[in-house]
């Protein structure tokens, strides 16, 4: 315990620990000192000087940064101090467009409130002539530099509290202001719209645009006070809640009401207050299969859906759990689960705008809070709430989560109990580095929310090796291998990861040699893949080649246009091989004398995999991108693919409406489809079926390399799986 010192504030004797600032000492003793630039959760900087007090020194001291001295006599309210404050506020008000937006909206502009408190008259000074401008580029936050008083609260919020390092100072003198990144417009900057700056801002310089925070219709709109009364919002800034009034509503659902539907886009998360809900996937957990209806001799191709049991596909995982955007995973066979009070779902939708991963239906009459991301964000920063979530997770979801990872399925109950209170749930903001290449490996991570990008640093820039979705894990290679991280893993969006310490990990692999062997095997595969994916760092001056992204591709379907007779056999073959659905469109850009057909290129950086809400799109251990049966048809991967190589196909299906009536409902479902290279065959069907020797599946650098005098990277040639196949990659003779 630090040494206590005594001092006098406004005539009262007070005792505080050494190192306490005058401001804090006064507040602890109920003596308010007005301030603008200081906020309790932030490091004081003392730039506004409104908090000046008379300490008997030559000049007034800024109470927020001045530490107490023993025997000090502080006067906070003497006329001289009041006059100095009033002068400061008057000068600030001279440039302040009173009433500012905040004052207009919620009447709580701190500057104007202070001016009113201090009875500052209309400023005697003229307003500045050069306008400082506004920035409307962000969707969620309006920036009005006119209202800015340069208190730096937003900068500290962004950099110190959120560690986003977006906001900073720019300019000098009259041009001084806050800036996003290198003075970019806010919308174009790396800002993640966390709202911390906005919450921090004392004036109307940063205000909620209510774009994200559109009023949530219906339900019981909750006032900030009511929210603060709820245990989950204990300790949350009232200002923020007021600012986001309408961003959180309480909803009552009757049993059977649909709360949200899979595949829909949304922006809210739900927190269950009472009652319980069912979470399920109603899209058939099936893939497309052709039904051979040979009615008459003009057979018609009909595409049907069939599931893994009826029609097993060799390339599929045998995963038994489908990760969804809730604290539980859904079992594959019967994709439903129940959530109860205290559970939060829809986090990924809310934070990263992923489509809904499952349908939620009220199981009993229930009450839930629906909230937008700003509310959720604040909620998740709330330590109480956080602790509660962690607790829930540890109790209910951890076991499920661990077992949903195939390699860890063999963990015993005792060991999970052992881990239960030893694991750590950590959140990462977008872009945040989780492990860095070259660092010592000290822990193993399971991804609970969001996507983790695994990349390797190369002289030419980072090479993305993989995207680890929810339910995936990383960090084992370093632990199993040399103890050094071999790749950098960073959060692609809002990531929550379960950290298992190296010690526990070692215990685990000692106790479960099967898991060790499996992990080692997967790690070896991953390493092999990584070696295979290493691209050449040769930069080639080939505008087209680069512009078309061919460099990024690992395998291209090219059609030799000098041989192709446009007979469409490749498309028919593709449709036949994929049950009546073509995964190939014979259209695209030309490169040299080849048509680069629209068919998955197996990119080195598979952008399609980012954001799949249920993690059903993944890369196989070789090259192919595969879409698993539990695709819910949200279409995110299709819109993510820069080349249009994933298409959404609609199928008419009959689904049994599980509740309440269990009747069959005809509906249209979408499924994403992409080229799978016909991996169960020796050669892709399109290539096999080309009668004119025009279609080829090629590794672009090897294939076009000879043409442009490139030396194909050895690693690619060595490891590309398709190379050994005879006749596939025959370059034109």
């Amino acid at each position: 315990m630090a040494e206590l010192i005594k001092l006098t504030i406004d005539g009262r004797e007070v005792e505080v620990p050494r190192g306490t600032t005058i401001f804090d000492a006064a507040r602890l003793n109920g003596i308010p000192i007005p301030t603008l630039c200081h906020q309790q959760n932030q490091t004081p900087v003392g730039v506004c000087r409104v908090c000046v007090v008379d300490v008997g020194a030559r000049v007034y001291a800024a109470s927020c940064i001045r530490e107490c001295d023993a025997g000090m006599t502080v006067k906070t309210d003497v006329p001289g101090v009041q006059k100095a404050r009033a002068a400061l506020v008057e000068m600030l008000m001279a440039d302040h467009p009173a009433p500012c937006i905040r004052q207009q909206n919620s009447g709580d502009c701190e500057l104007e409130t202070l001016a009113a408190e201090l009875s500052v008259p209309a400023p005697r000074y003229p307003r500045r002539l050069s306008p400082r401008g506004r920035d409307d580029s962000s969707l969620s936050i309006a920036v009005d530099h006119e209202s800015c008083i340069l208190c730096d609260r937003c900068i500290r919020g962004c950099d110190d509290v959120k560690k986003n390092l977006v906001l900073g100072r720019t300019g000098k003198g009259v041009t001084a202001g806050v800036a996003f990144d290198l003075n970019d417009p806010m919308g174009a900057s790396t800002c993640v719209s966390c709202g911390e700056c906005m919450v921090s801002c004392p004036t109307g310089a940063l205000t909620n645009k209510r774009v994200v925070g559109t009023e949530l219709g219906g339900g019981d709109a909750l006032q900030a006070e009511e929210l603060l009364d709820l245990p989950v919002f204990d300790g949350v800034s009232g200002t923020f809640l007021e600012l986001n009034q309408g961003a959180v509503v309480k909803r009552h659902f009757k049993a059977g009401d649909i709360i949200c539907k899979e595949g829909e886009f949304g922006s809210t998360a739900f927190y269950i207050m009472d009652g319980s809900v069912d979470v399920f996937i109603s899209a058939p957990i099936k893939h497309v299969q052709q039904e051979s209806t040979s009615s008459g001799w003009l057979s018609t191709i009909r595409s049907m859906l069939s599931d893994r049991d009826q029609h097993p596909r060799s390339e599929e995982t045998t995963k038994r759990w489908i990760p969804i955007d809730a604290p539980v995973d859904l079992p594959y066979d019967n994709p439903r689960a129940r959530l109860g009070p205290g559970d939060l779902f829809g986090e990924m939708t809310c934070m990263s705008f992923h489509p809904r991963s499952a349908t939620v239906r009220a199981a009993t009459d229930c009450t839930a809070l629906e909230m937008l991301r700003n509310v959720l964000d604040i909620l998740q920063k709330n330590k109480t709430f956080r602790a509660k979530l962690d607790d829930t997770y540890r109790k209910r979801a951890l076991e499920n989560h661990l077992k949903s990872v195939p390699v860890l399925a063999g963990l015993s109950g005792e060991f999970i109990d052992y881990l239960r209170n030893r694991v750590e749930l950590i959140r990462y903001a977008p872009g945040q580095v989780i492990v860095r290449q070259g660092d010592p490996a000290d822990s193993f991570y399971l991804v609970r929310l969001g996507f983790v990008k695994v990349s390797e640093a190369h002289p030419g820039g980072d090479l993305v090796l993989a995207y680890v979705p929810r339910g995936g894990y990383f960090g084992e290679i370093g632990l199993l291998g040399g103890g050094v991280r071999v790749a950098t893993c960073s959060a692609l969006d809002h990531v929550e990861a379960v950290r298992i310490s190296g010690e526990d990990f070692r215990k685990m692999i000692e106790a479960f040699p099967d898991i060790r062997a499996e992990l080692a095997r997967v790690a070896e595969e991953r390493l092999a893949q990584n070696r295979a994916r290493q691209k050449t760092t040769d930069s080639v001056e080939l505008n087209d080649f680069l512009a078309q992204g061919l460099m990024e591709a690992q395998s291209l379907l090219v059609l030799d246009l000098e041989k192709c007779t446009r007979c469409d056999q490749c498309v028919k073959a593709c449709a036949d091989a994929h049950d009546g659905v073509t995964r190939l469109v014979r259209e695209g850009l030309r490169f040299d004398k080849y048509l680069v057909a629209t068919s998955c290129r197996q990119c080195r950086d598979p952008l399609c995999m980012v954001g799949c809400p249920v993690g059903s799109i993944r890369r196989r251990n070789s090259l192919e991108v595969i879409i698993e049966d539990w695709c819910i048809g949200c279409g995110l991967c299709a819109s993510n693919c820069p080349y249009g190589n994933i298409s959404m196909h609609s199928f008419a299906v009959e689904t049994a409406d599980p509740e309440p009536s269990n009747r069959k409902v005809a509906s249209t479902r979408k499924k994403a489809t992409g080229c799978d290279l016909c991996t169960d065959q020796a050669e892709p069907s399109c290539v096999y079926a080309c009668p004119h020797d025009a279609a080829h599946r090629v590794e672009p650098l090897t294939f076009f390399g000879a043409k442009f005098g490139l030396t194909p990277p050895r690693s690619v040639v060595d490891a590309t799986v398709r190379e050994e196949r005879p006749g596939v990659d025959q370059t034109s003779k």
Partner: protein
Amino acid sequence: MGGRTRTAKALAQRIDLNYFKRPHPFRRWKLGLSIAVPAAALLWLAGIAAGGSRAPYSSGPASSAHQVFGDKCERCHVTQARAFRAHVTDNMCVSCHDAPQHKSNQTFTPACASCHLEHRGAIRLATTSNRECEQCHLDLKTTTGRRTVAQVVGSFEDGHPEFAALRPAADASAKAVDRAVLKFNHEIHMKPGLRVPAGTAPLECSTCHEQMLPAATLGRTRAREMPVPVTYAKNCASCHRLYFDPLIDAVVPHDAPEKVHAVVVRMLREFITANPGQIGKPDPVRGRIPVNFPEPMQRVRNAAEWVDARTATVERLLWSKTCAECHTISAAFPRVVSTNMRSGWMPHARFDHQAHQMASCVSCHAAQTSRDTADVLMPSIATCQQCHKPTRGAESRCFECHEYHDWKTAKPAKPGFDLQQLTN
């Protein structure tokens, strides 16, 4: 191109993903025609079949003889009961043509149609290929085990034996011999400048070996084969007249000795009746007879005795000189040994002299040097093969000379059709 950028994604998204499942005019045409054209072809056949005709299935025009049937295939192609095939059976052929079989001891009898290939255009069906004969004759076997012809005959050029007439029967060194009992010397008769009785033409081959004119041989194939047989009356009598008595300017007929004797007696009686003074006059003929005349001179007292004596003398001369000029006379009572002249020299084949009339006789027959009747003047097979070989163009297939069917055993066919049936 300002303003418009073509990206792979934009291009791909223009395309309707199910376009290939929808019918396109081109594919519809392709499908439609693929059904329509074969259907049209079938309709064409069906239409013809509906008219009862099976003509389209003909593998070619029928032979000239059978063209009379037109497209009435069923005349010959009769479907057997419960059988798919409607091949022409021998029964159908035989119903018009009773072609007898070749030999009674042949090991098998091929079907008519296997030799007589129909639907090969307007050709003679009799024209068969060597292959048909070779079936047996390449290595001849018979049911009886006896053969009358060579065992291995490939073709006229290959393995065909020398003509039977020229083939020595047993002794290989012996020359083939004409066994005719007649004395004839071709060389003398063909000697240039041979003196002939006034009023007769100089001798040529055709003076004796008369060729029939085409008009006379029309349709009679047998007659075309050999010249008309040589007879005394036609071919010898103009030179070799049968005078028997210098007193009588008359000849005896070329006939049997009995008839000749009767004629001689009758003519001598008539003569002595007309010239009684001749009785007792020395016999000039007798005077020429050698002294060792076996019979003693007798006194002739009356006409009857003169006739007897004169007959004996004249006939002695006649038999031993005039007749014996050509014939062989048996020693006792004059009996002419049969001349035994052969009319045909080829037992199994036919030869058409008329077809060869452009060639001079002696270029094949060595008659000018033949002094002996025993000389066989039939040319050797080698002579034929000078022209009749594949490289020289003259036909050398079996059917040219040989006949398969043994017409000697032919039976008359029963008429199977009436005119109406044939022409409708």
